[in-house]
C-alpha cells in the first residue's frame, strides 16, 4: 500500500508537471487528490498497534534497500501531512488569483514535497530516511524560491537549503555511526549506543534535528522562508516539515536514554529556542513573522519535552505536536486570507477586522486560544499535559524545565494576545476584498478541528496515545484530560494565562523597530563568502592564460623532482667522459639561455636550432652518429617550419613586463635544474647493464640486418612503429582537416 500511495503521488506529480498547464488553477485541486486518498488510509491506521512494514531490497550486494514502517506515530504524522495537505491544496486554489502563472508547477512541487514528507515519516532505514529528508529540503527550496524574481527571496531559499541540507549530512553521519554500532541500517532495530561513538552520534543527530526544526542558532532560515506563498508556510513551515526534526528526536531518543549529552544538548536547543522564539514573536509586526517565531518557540518546547525523556513528557510532546500542527496551520491560513483580502499582514496597519470578517475572527480566536492553552481547545489539554510533565520532575531538571516552560507559556499567551489584538482588534477598519469560500473555509475547518479535538478528546487520545506508547511503553498510563481537576498544574495554567494576557495587552500597541536579523545575515555572509571565494579562486587559478598554465605545470613538475637530490650518488656520477663534452655542454646552455632572452622571433628560432645542433654534437661525442643524423634532420625540418610560421607573425615577441619575464626565466631555470637532478638521480642508480649487446646480436641473427636502429624499429618494436605511423597519420589527417576547413571558411567569407 505504501508503494501504491507513493506511486500515486508520483503519477500525479508527473502528470501535473508535464501536462498540467491547461488545468491552470485547477491543478491545485488535482494535487489534493492523492493526499485525500492518503488521509483516508491514515485514518484507518490511526492508533494502530500492529505496524505495517514494507521491505524492498533494491541493490543486492550494496545492502541498499527501502524499508518503510507504518506504526502509530507514523500514522499520526501521516494524518497531519495528508489531512492538512488536502486542506492546504484547496486553500491554495483560493489563495492564488486565477490569472497566476505556473500553478501546475507549483502544485507538482508542493505535491512532491508531500510525497517526500510522507516517505520521511514512513522511513525505517537510515538510507530511506536520509533520501527523503534531503528531498524535503530540496522541494522546500524550490517552493520558497517560487517568487523567483526577488533576490532576497532567492537568498532566503538558499539559506534554508544550506542549513537544512547540511543538517541532512549530519544526520547521515550520525546514523552511520549508530548503524556501525548495531550492525543494521534498520532504524527500529538500532541499538543503544554508548561511549564516545554514542556521544558523537547523539550530537550529530541532535544538530540535524535542530537545523530542520529551526532551533537556535539554526533558526535563521525559518523567518526568511516566510517569503514563500502562505500555503507553503502553513504547510511546510509550521505543520509538517519543521516537525521532522522533532520526530527525529522522538524516534532516536530511545537509543540515547543513557546519554547526558543528548539530554542537555536537547534541553539547551529547546529552552533557548522556546524563550528566544517567543521574544522574537513579540518583536515583529508582520503577522507571518510573528507566527514563524512562535513556531520556533513551540518547536523548542517540543524538543525540551522530548529531551527530558520521561514517559509523561514524551506523551505531552506528542500531544502538543498534534495540537500545534492544527492550530498553527489554521492561524497561517487566516493570516494568508487577510493578506490576500487586505493587501497587508502588518499588525500595525490592520484593525477592525473583527467586525468585517467575523467568522475568520472566530476561527482565529479558537486557534489562538488553542495556542495559548485556553480551554475548551485541544491546545489546552496538551499544554496541561506538558505542565504536569515538567512539574513532575525532580531536582535540577525541575528547576530548569519548570521555570522555562512556564515562562515560555506566559510569553506564548502574550504574543497570541498581541497577534489577535493587532490583527482583529479595534482600530480604523481596513478595506477588504470580497470573501471566497475556498480561501476562508480551510482556515475555519482547521480551527474547528482544535475545538472538535477537545470536545471529542477520546478520539484525540486514540490517535496520540498509541503514538506515544510507540516511543515509550510507560506512556500507556497517560491520557489527555478535559478537566484535570484542581491540581497545581491547573493553578499554574490559570496564572500563566492571566499574566500572559496582561503582558500581551500591554504590548499590543508596542511597535518595535524591526530587529536586524543578525543570524540570517551571518548565514548569508557565510554563503556569499563561499561563493565569492569560489569566484576569486577560479578567477585566480582559472584565468585562461596558457603561458601561466604551462609555467605552473612546469614549475610544479620541476619542484617535484628536486627531492631526488638525495638520490644523487657522487661515487657513480662523473662530470664528463672527455673535456670536449664540457665545452659543447656549455655551448648548449648558453644558446638555450640566448633563446630565452632574445627579443626577435627569428633569433629565438635560430638559437633553438643551435641548441639542437649542440645536442647532436653531444651524441657524436657519445659515439652515436645515427642519432646525430636523426637529430640534425629533425632540427632542420623544425627550423624550416619556424621560418614558414614566422612569416605570418611580427618579427619581435610582444613586450612583457619585467616581473613576468623574471618569473618565466625562473621557471625555465627551475625546469632545467629539475630535469638535471632527475637525470643524475637515475644515472646514480643504473639497473644493470644496458641490453645493447644482446640487441646487436639479435639484430643480425633474428632481424637479418646490420643497422641496429632499423631492426629495432621494424622487428623488435614493430608494433610500436606501427603505432607511431598511426600517430603521424592522425596528425597528418588533423592538419589536413584544419587547413581544409580554413580554406572553406576563407571561401565563405569572400
Amino acid at each position: 500500500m505504501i508503494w501504491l500511495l507513493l506511486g500515486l503521488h508520483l503519477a500525479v506529480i508527473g502528470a501535473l508537471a508535464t501536462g498540467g498547464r491547461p488545468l491552470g488553477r485547477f491543478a491545485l485541486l488535482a494535487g489534493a487528490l492523492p493526499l485525500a486518498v492518503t488521509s483516508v488510509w491514515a485514518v484507518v491506521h490511526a492508533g494502530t498497534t500492529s505496524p505495517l512494514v514494507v521491505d524492498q531490497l533494491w541493490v543486492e550486494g550494496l545492502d541498499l534497500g527501502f524499508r518503510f514502517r507504518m506504526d502509530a506515530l507514523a500514522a499520526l504524522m501521516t494524518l497531519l501531512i495528508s489531512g492538512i495537505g488536502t486542506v492546504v491544496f484547496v486553500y491554495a486554489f483560493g489563495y492564488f488569483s486565477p490569472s497566476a502563472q505556473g500553478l501546475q508547477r507549483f502544485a507538482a512541487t508542493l505535491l512532491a514535497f508531500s510525497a517526500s514528507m510522507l516517505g520521511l515519516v514512513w522511513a525505517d532505514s537510515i538510507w530511506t530516511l536520509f533520501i527523503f529528508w534531503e528531498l524535503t529540503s530540496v522541494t522546500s527550496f524550490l517552493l520558497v524560491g517560487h517568487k523567483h524574481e526577488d533576490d532576497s527571496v532567492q537568498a532566503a531559499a538558499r539559506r534554508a537549503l544550506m542549513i537544512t541540507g547540511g543538517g541532512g549530512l549530519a544526520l547521515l553521519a550520525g546514523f552511520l555511526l549508530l548503524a556501525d554500532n548495531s550492525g543494521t541500517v534498520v532504524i527500529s532495530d538500532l541499538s543503544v549506543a554508548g561511549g564516545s561513538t554514542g556521544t558523537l552520534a547523539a550530537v550529530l543527530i541532535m544538530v540535524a534535528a535542530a537545523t530542520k526544526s529551526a532551533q537556535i542558532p539554526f533558526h535563521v532560515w525559518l523567518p526568511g522562508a516566510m517569503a514563500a506563498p502562505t500555503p507553503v508556510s502553513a504547510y511546510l513551515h509550521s505543520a509538517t516539515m519543521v516537525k521532522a526534526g522533532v520526530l527525529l528526536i522522538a524516534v532516536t531518543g530511545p537509543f540515547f536514554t543513557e546519554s547526558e549529552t543528548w539530554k542537555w544538548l536537547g534541553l539547551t536547543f529547546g529552552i533557548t529556542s522556546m524563550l528566544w522564539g517567543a521574544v522574537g514573536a513579540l518583536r515583529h509586526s508582520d503577522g507571518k513573522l510573528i507566527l514563524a517565531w512562535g513556531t520556533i518557540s513551540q518547536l523548542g518546547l517540543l524538543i525540551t519535552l522530548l529531551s527530558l525523556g520521561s514517559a509523561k513528557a514524551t506523551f505531552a510532546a506528542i500531544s502538543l505536536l498534534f495540537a500545534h500542527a492544527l492550530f498553527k496551520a489554521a492561524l497561517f491560513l487566516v493570516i494568508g486570507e487577510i493578506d490576500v483580502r487586505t493587501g497587508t499582514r502588518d499588525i500595525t496597519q490592520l484593525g477592525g477586522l473583527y467586525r468585517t470578517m467575523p467568522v475568520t475572527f472566530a476561527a482565529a480566536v479558537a486557534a489562538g486560544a488553542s495556542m495559548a492553552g485556553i480551554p475548551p481547545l485541544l491546545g489546552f489539554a496538551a499544554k496541561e499535559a506538558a505542565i504536569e510533565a515538567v512539574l513532575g520532575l525532580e531536582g535540577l531538571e525541575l528547576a530548569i524545565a519548570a521555570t522555562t516552560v512556564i515562562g515560555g507559556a506566559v510569553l506564548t499567551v502574550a504574543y497570541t494576545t498581541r497577534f489577535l489584538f493587532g490583527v482583529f482588534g479595534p482600530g480604523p477598519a481596513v478595506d477588504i476584498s470580497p470573501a471566497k469560500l475556498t480561501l476562508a473555509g480551510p482556515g475555519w475547518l482547521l480551527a474547528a478541528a482544535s475545538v472538535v479535538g477537545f470536545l471529542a478528546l477520546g478520539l484525540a487520545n486514540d490517535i496520540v496515545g498509541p503514538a506515544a506508547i510507540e516511543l515509550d511503553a510507560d506512556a500507556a498510563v497517560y491520557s489527555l484530560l478535559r478537566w484535570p481537576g484542581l491540581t497545581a498544574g491547573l493553578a499554574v495554567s490559570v496564572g500563566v494565562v492571566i499574566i500572559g494576557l496582561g503582558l500581551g495587552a500591554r504590548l499590543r500597541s508596542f511597535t518595535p523597530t524591526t530587529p536586524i536579523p543578525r543570524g540570517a545575515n551571518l548565514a548569508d555572509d557565510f554563503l556569499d563568502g563561499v561563493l565569492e571565494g569560489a569566484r576569486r579562486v577560479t578567477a585566480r587559478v582559472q584565468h585562461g592564460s596558457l603561458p601561466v598554465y604551462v609555467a605552473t605545470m612546469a614549475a610544479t613538475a620541476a619542484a617535484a623532482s628536486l627531492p631526488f637530490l638525495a638520490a644523487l650518488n657522487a661515487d657513480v656520477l662523473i662530470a664528463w667522459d672527455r673535456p670536449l663534452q664540457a665545452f659543447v655542454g656549455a655551448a648548449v646552455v648558453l644558446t638555450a639561455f640566448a633563446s630565452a632572452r632574445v627579443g626577435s622571433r627569428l633569433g629565438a628560432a635560430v638559437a633553438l636550432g643551435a641548441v639542437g645542433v649542440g645536442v647532436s654534437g653531444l651524441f657524436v661525442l657519445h659515439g652515436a652518429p645515427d642519432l646525430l643524423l636523426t637529430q640534425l634532420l629533425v632540427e632542420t625540418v623544425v627550423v624550416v617550419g619556424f621560418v614558414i610560421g614566422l612569416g605570418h607573425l611580427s618579427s619581435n615577441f610582444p613586450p612583457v613586463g619585467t616581473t613576468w619575464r623574471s618569473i618565466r626565466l625562473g621557471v625555465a631555470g627551475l625546469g632545467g635544474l629539475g630535469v638535471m637532478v632527475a637525470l643524475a638521480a637515475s644515472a646514480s642508480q643504473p639497473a644493470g647493464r644496458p641490453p645493447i649487446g644482446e640487441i646487436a646480436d639479435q639484430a643480425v641473427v633474428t632481424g637479418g640486418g646490420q643497422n641496429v636502429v632499423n631492426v629495432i624499429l621494424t622487428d623488435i618494436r614493430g608494433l610500436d612503429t606501427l603505432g607511431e605511423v598511426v600517430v603521424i597519420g592522425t596528425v597528418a589527417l588533423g592538419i589536413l582537416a584544419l587547413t581544409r576547413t580554413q580554406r572553406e571558411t576563407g571561401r565563405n567569407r569572400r
Partner: protein
Amino acid sequence: MLAQVATPEVPWSLLWPFLLMALGAVALVTITSLVTELRTRQFPSLFTIAMAVGGGASLPYIWGRIGEIPERRILVLDGAMSIDYFTIVAAAIILSAVVFAAIFLDDYLRREGLDGPEWYVLIMLSASGGLMMAAAEDLIVTFLGLEILSIAVYVLAALHLRRAESQEAGFKYFVLGALSSAFFLYGIALVYGATGSTRLSEIDAALFATNARGLVPAEDSSMILAGMALLLVGFGFKVSAAPFHLWTPDVYQGAPTPVVGFMASAVKVGGFAGLLRVFLAGFGRLGDDWRPVVGAMALLSIVIGSFLAIRQDNVKRMLAYSSISHAGFILIGLFAAGSRNAEVAQLGTRSVLFYLFAYTVMVVGSFGVVTLVGGRGDGKHDLSDYAGLAQRSPILAGFFLVLLFAQAGIPFTSGFLAKFGVIQAAVRDEAYVLAGVAMVAAVVGAYLYLRIIKTMFFSDGAHTVPVAAALDTNVEATPDGAVIAPDEQISLPPAAVAAILVAVAITLLWGFAPNIGGDILRDAAATFLR
C-alpha cells in the same frame, strides 16, 4: 638470404573492434576522397555508426573466446596487448560513446555548415587509441594509445573554425596535452630504468626481485616512485583530475559541443582504462605507495569540481567542473581497487566500471542536450539561455532534468548508484575521510545541478536575461549576415532526440535496476585480481 623471422601470430578476430576503428577511419577518408558527393550526405555519420556497431557486435564473440581459457585473458601481439573482460567492457563503453558522438555530430555539422568526413575520421581514430589504451599490456603501447587518442581530439577541439574560442581551446588543449605526454613518456623511461622492462607483467615481476646490481627496485630505488608519479601526471591530465584539470573548463567551453561530449566520455574512459590497467596490473603490489597520491588527487578533484563550480554561469563550464568532480569519484574507486583485500579490490574495480558506464551515458546525453540548446553558432551556453527551457522545449528540459539528477547523484538514477558504489568501496576500505568528504562534496555539488534545473523550470526566460548577456550570446551573426533572434526555436532533430532518449532511458533503467549487467561487471572487475 633472409633468415626465417619469427613473427608473432596476429589473432585478427580478437582485434576486430580496434581494427574497425583504425581502418574504418582510413577507409572513410579514402572513400570520401574518391566519391566526393558522399562527403556531405549522412554517409560519414552512418559509416561511423556502422563501424562502431560492427565492432560492438563482435564483443560477445570475443567474450566467449576469453571464457574458453582458464586464465580469462588472451595475450596478443607478442604480449603487447591483453584481451580480457576488462578490455571488452572498456571497449563497449568507448564504442557507445562513438555512436552517440556520430549521431550528435551529424545534426550539429549540418546546423553549423561544417559538413565533412574529417570529424568522423578523427573520432574513429581517437576511439582506436582509446581501445588500444584499454588493452595495452606494455607502457609503450599505452603511450601510443594515449597519443592517438589525444592528437585526434586536439584537432577536433579546434575544428569549429568559425569560433575563435574553438581554436583557442584546441591550442590550449594541445600545448598542455603535449606537455603532459612528455611527463608520461619520461615516466615510462624512469620505470624502465628501475625495472628493465615496459611490459606490465615484467614490471610487476621485477618490482620485488633482486636485479643484476643486487637491488630490489621497489625497495631500494626512488626511481620507480618518480616514474609512477609522472605516469599519474599524464593520466591525470587525460582524465582531468585535479591538479591537472586546469585545461578542462577552458577547453570544454570553447570546443564544439558534440566533441566535448566525446571528450568527456570516450577520452576519459580511455584514460581511466589505461590508468587502471597500468596501476593495478603493473604497480598493483606498490599500492601502499600510490594509493595515498590517488586518494589526494581524488579529494582535490572532488572539492575543486564541486566548490569552484557553484559560481560558474556557463553551462558547458559547469559541466566541465562536474566532469572534474566525477573524475575524483572514479579515482576513489581506483583507490579502493588498489587494496590488498581482494574483496575490496574487486568491489573497487567494479564500482569504477559501473561509474564509467553510467557516467558516459549521462554525460553524452547531457552534452547532447547542450548541443541542441546551443543553437546555430554553438554559442547559447549561458545559464540565462536555459531560462524557461521547460516551456520552450519541455522534452529537452525533461531529459536534461533526468541527466542532471543523475550527475548530481539523486536516487533512482544510475548516478546515485555510481556514487554510492565508489563511496561504499571506500568505506569497506576503511577510508572514512575520503568517503566523508566525497559525500559532503556530492551534496554541495548537487547545488550546481539544482541551479540549472531551477533556471530551466522556475525561470520564465525573457525577463531574467540581462540585456547585455542577450546581446553577447543570443544574437549571433551567421556567415551570410542574418541575425538570429534570441527566441529562435530550438530545433529537435529526431536522431539526436532519440539518442538522448536512449541515454535517459539507460540512466533511469540503471537507476531502478542496477543489477542488470552485474555479472559482466563482476567478471570484468576480477581481471586484475591476483
